[in-house]
C-alpha cells in the first residue's frame, strides 16, 4: 500500500472559546470491496475506517468511515478552542496502519 499523506488546514491563532473550521484530506484509494478486476475477481476492501481529532489529549470529533466515502477522504468540521494547544489528527487504515498529523494553535 502506498503511503498515505495527510493534509490539514487549521488557523494558527484564535480568540478564547472561538469555534474554528478544520479541513483535512488524506491520500488513499478507499478501495470499496465492491469492484472487480478484469478477471472478475472482487478487489478486497481497503479503506481508512476511522478518523479522530484530539485537542490537548481530549477527543473533539471523530468519524467512522464506510466504503461509500470517496477516494482521498475529505473531512471538514468545527472545534472550540478553549486555550493554546495542539490538535492531533489520526487516521486508521484497514491494514492496521495509523497516520497522524499535529497542528498548534495559539489563543490570543
Amino acid at each position, binding site marked *: 500500500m502506498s503511503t498515505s499523506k495527510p493534509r490539514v488546514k487549521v488557523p494558527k491563532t484564535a480568540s478564547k472559546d472561538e469555534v474554528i473550521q478544520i479541513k483535512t484530506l488524506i491520500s488513499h484509494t478507499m478501495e470499496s470491496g465492491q469492484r*472487480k478486476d478484469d478477471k472478475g475477481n472482487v478487489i478486497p476492501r481497503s479503506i481508512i475506517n476511522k478518523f479522530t481529532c484530539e485537542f490537548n489529549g481530549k477527543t473533539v470529533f471523530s468519524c467512522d468511515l464506510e466504503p461509500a466515502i470517496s477516494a482521498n477522504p475529505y473531512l471538514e468540521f*468545527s472545534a472550540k478552542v478553549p486555550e493554546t494547544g495542539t490538535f492531533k489528527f489520526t487516521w486508521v487504515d484497514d491494514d492496521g496502519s495509523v497516520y497522524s498529523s499535529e497542528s498548534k494553535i495559539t489563543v490570543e
Partner: protein
Amino acid sequence: VLAMTGLPRFASAEDAKVQAAIDAFAGGASIETGTVSLSAPEIAENGNTVPIGVSVDSPMTDADHVTAVMLLAAGNPQPGVATFHFSSMSGSADATTRMRLAKTQDVIALAKTSTGKVFMDRKTVKVTIGGCGG
C-alpha cells in the same frame, strides 16, 4: 417515480437494510424532523465524489449537545456512508465530506443528542454517472 413502480422488490430489499441501520442508530427513540439539515447537490454529475454536509441546530453544551450523526445512502449496495461523533468541544455540530453514490437515490442524515432525541433529514440526489463501478 413512475419508473420505480416496476421494481417494488428491489426497493423493499434496500429499504430493509436502511431501516435496520436507522433502527440501530435510533435505539427505540422516536424520530423527529427538523433540527438536522442535510446539504447535498440536487444533481451530481459524477457519483464518485458527491459533496455532502450536515448541520445540526444545538447549543453544544456539556448537558445538551449532538453526540452523533449518521449518513446513509439508501440506494447504494451498502447504505452506510459515515458516522460523525461530536462532543461539547466540537463547538458546532456540523461536518462535510465526499461520498460515492451508485445511482440516483435518497441520502439520509440522522442526528442523536445527549438528551436522547433523534432527528432525521433526507434529500434526493440525481446521479448522472454512477460511483460504484464494477
